[in-house]
């Protein structure tokens, strides 16, 4: 092979590991990512997999940097091929000075190949760990840290397995020391703070528990499932109930029942499952019961591409539920925002007594990042219910100026708590008094004023008088900001306007930015330009140019720049 060694270390690299499902590429990817985080690097992981248990072609990409990494990218520095398809499918993305790590048994020849005799290094079932050794050595990671991370991942329960893993790792490292190259060594990071490796779903789970979650009911659906898995792992220690419901309809109704009785609750699903929950959303609104609903988007209609990403359910979630009622929809742009906005959704759900939403997607759900530990000490959980003076008659749906009524919990006082999905009187009983109907509609909608007053303004970054303003929402935040800074480095006057809350929209918070830019472009992971349509509906401002991606893959700086330059 060609020797690239020039002693120059790298500040940023994109590593793509590819193979069949079942080859352990996610395991290798997670361990490598964890070792990188422990070594002080910043990462963005992108997982792309097929909807199957074995075979097919899957990848896990780790973009790693000494400085903060905020987005995935498409060009590859280090291609780790656990199978032949990885080479054929991804060589086109390899940078001119890139390197392919592959099995020496492969008949593929060419430049930039590091052919590793995996069969000599380890038994077949440990060859992914040998590959991990090769890659960690190429990157110049501390081998003590690498071995420790590997041991932590598998635990010490099975001593023989641990010994085999250690041996395979060492064999990979040893071989690379002699036969490898120093072309892809990362610059060392000295004196770094301790960070966590967490993906969007894990951060949502942790945020929910910190906010006081007590009951989580779910029906498995990719890419939301790992929220439930994270919570199930914490249930015993944190005093939660995590229940796999018989279907999504049951899941949301169970959450509503629990919340009505005083246990803060949450459900998570993806588009199809959310479609089943929609009547329940309307029930939470009518009975004024707090519930947090996470919709992790994937490409649709119907089953769509079950394991890929998309941002096409904004309009769906905004309009889900028959009738009119207020809501808030958060669309986190990072793992940290997943944590904080989940907490915010709990707070709003409790304060305004109704359904609040978190809209994420497969990319963010599965994307591991290096995050600073959250300052848990300063965070208070929500408290279910609202105290009232014990003076009868208690009226659960008393008409108030804010629209917020005193929410007592059944069985916790001598008062009776009555809630109805039918239109109801102030004491919660079914009614067909049409003047009461009007008052109740207005009372419920008044809560929307409070939600609106608490709406977070979008993030604005970049040139104050931009020639180009990129408008985005949700998980593409980093990709859009990186695209903007790449343009800026070429002398363009560019700014970004990013919405991590997509509803309610408060035009006063952003109209001046739209109006002052020479050109406005919406950047979205859907085919309609749904945020652009919403902005037009709410403000009359028409964003004509759109950069839209709907092939199932996340927006990247390259894909955005490519479309902009077309």
């Amino acid at each position, binding site marked *: 092979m060609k020797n690239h060694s020039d002693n120059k270390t790298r500040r940023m690299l994109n590593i793509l590991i590819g193979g069949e499902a079942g080859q352990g590429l996610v395991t290798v990817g997670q361990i490598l990512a964890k070792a990188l985080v422990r070594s002080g690097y910043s990462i963005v992981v992108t997982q792309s997999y097929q909807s199957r248990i074995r075979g097919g072609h899957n990848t896990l990409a780790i973009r790693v940097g000494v400085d903060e990494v905020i987005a995935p990218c498409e060009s590859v520095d280090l291609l780790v091929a656990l199978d032949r398809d990885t080479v054929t499918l991804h060589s086109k993305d390899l940078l001119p000075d890139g390197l392919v790590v592959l099995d020496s048994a492969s008949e593929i020849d060419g430049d930039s190949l590091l052919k590793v005799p995996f069969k000599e290094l380890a038994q077949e079932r440990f060859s992914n760990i040998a590959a991990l050794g090769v890659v960690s050595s190429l990157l110049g990671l501390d081998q003590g840290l690498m071995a420790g991370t590997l041991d932590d991942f598998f635990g010490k329960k099975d001593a023989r397995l641990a010994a085999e893993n250690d041996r395979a790792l060492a064999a990979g490292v040893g071989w690379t020391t002699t036969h490898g190259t120093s072309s892809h060594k990362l610059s060392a990071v000295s004196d770094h703070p301790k*960070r966590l490796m967490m993906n969007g779903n894990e951060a949502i789970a942790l945020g929910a528990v910190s906010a006081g979650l007590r009951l989580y009911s779910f029906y498995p659906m990719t890419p939301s499932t790992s929220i439930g898995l994270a919570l199930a792992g914490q249930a015993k220690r944190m005093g939660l109930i995590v229940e796999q419901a018989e279907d999504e309809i049951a899941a949301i109704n169970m959450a509503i029942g629990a919340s009505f009785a005083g246990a803060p609750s949450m459900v998570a699903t993806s588009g199809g499952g959310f479609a089943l929950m929609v*009547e329940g959303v309307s029930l939470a609104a009518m009975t004024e019961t707090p519930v947090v609903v996470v919709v992790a988007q994937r490409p649709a209609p119907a089953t769509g591409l079950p394991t890929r990403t998309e941002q096409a359910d904004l309009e769906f979630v905004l309009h889900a539920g028959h009738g009119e009622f207020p809501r808030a929809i958060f669309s986190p742009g990072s793992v940290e925002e997943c944590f904080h906005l989940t907490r915010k959704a709990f707070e709003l759900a409790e304060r305004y007594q109704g359904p609040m939403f978190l809209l994420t997607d497969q990319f963010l759900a599965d994307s591991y990042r290096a995050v600073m530990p959250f300052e848990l000490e300063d965070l208070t959980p929500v408290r279910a219910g609202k105290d009232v003076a014990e003076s009868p008659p208690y009226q659960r749906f008393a008409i108030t100026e804010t629209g917020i009524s005193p929410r007592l919990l059944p069985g916790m006082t001598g008062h009776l708590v009555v809630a109805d999905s039918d239109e109801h009187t102030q004491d919660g009983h079914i009614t067909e008094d049409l003047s009461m109907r009007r008052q109740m509609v207005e009372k419920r909608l008044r809560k929307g004023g409070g939600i609106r007053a608490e709406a977070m303004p979008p993030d604005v970054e970049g040139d104050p008088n931009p020639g180009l303003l990129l408008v985005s929402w949700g998980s593409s935040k980093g990709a859009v900001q990186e695209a903007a800074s790449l343009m800026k480095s070429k002398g363009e006057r560019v700014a970004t306007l990013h919405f991590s809350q997509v509803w309610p929209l408060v035009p006063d918070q952003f109209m001046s930015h739209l109006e002052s830019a020479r050109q406005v472009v919406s950047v979205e992971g859907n085919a309609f330009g749904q945020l652009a349509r919403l902005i037009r509906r709410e403000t009359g401002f028409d964003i004509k140019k759109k950069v839209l991606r709907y092939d199932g893959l996340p927006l990247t700086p390259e894909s955005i720049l490519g479309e902009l330059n077309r």
Partner: protein
Amino acid sequence: MVTIDDYGDYETAWCPGCGNFSILKAVKQALVASNLKPHELLFVSGIGQAAKAPHYLNANVFNGLHGRSLPVATGAKLANPNLTVIVESGDGCNYGEGGNHLLAAIRRNIDVTLLVHNNQVYGLTKGQASPTSAEGFVTKAQPQGVPSAPFNPIAVAVAMKAGLVARGFAGMSDHLSELIQQGIAHRGFALIDVLQPCVSFNKVNTFGWYKERCETLPPGYDPTDWEGAMKVAFEWGDKIPIGIIYRDNRLAFEEHFPALREGTLVGLDVDPVMLKKIMNGYG
């Protein structure tokens, strides 16, 4: 002491002569006999004439969606197991729209008493077939007669070894009240299927029709004998057995959860030390 007056007396939206009146009376009697105060109770109901019943007595009430009472009741019971939770709704709600939830509730064995007003017809929507309508039953929606076989809730519940399976008759209010008491006292899921005439839309299964057929189980009947119960579950004809048909004392659902060791999920503080430990596990 709780008295029947504690449960109030309210004007209803039911037809004169409806079986719901005697069911309501039996429910109130059972609550008094169980010495339960109104605020200790949570009634969950769905949609239909039966589902309005909880509005006509004093209790905590969650009147939710059609067919979805059981999941709501399950969530509420898990949140606060100190509540006595009773689901009251019709055959359409529980055996039709919410069929999957019935199966799940039986499997879970959640400590909830399900009271099904079973009149074999849809009343509120004015007379279409219900899941328990007899094959051939003629309605405006099924003018050639119902083409499907009726759902047998007792057989399904016994087959699944539900916690407690009973059948009552609205026309035998004291007997029904006794069944409801036993359902409430049973620690686990209890299904009480209540045969009930619909005076407006079911001209076949009338008060007289049921009265002629309903017969209490013989003395000495053993509800813990599953095979015997399966036989009884299929008796439906000139004679319809009523009473406690099956009983199983397996662990109630909520008893499985470590989180409920303290008794309830309501008002708990988040353990900051444990939370931090969990967070640092991601390091």
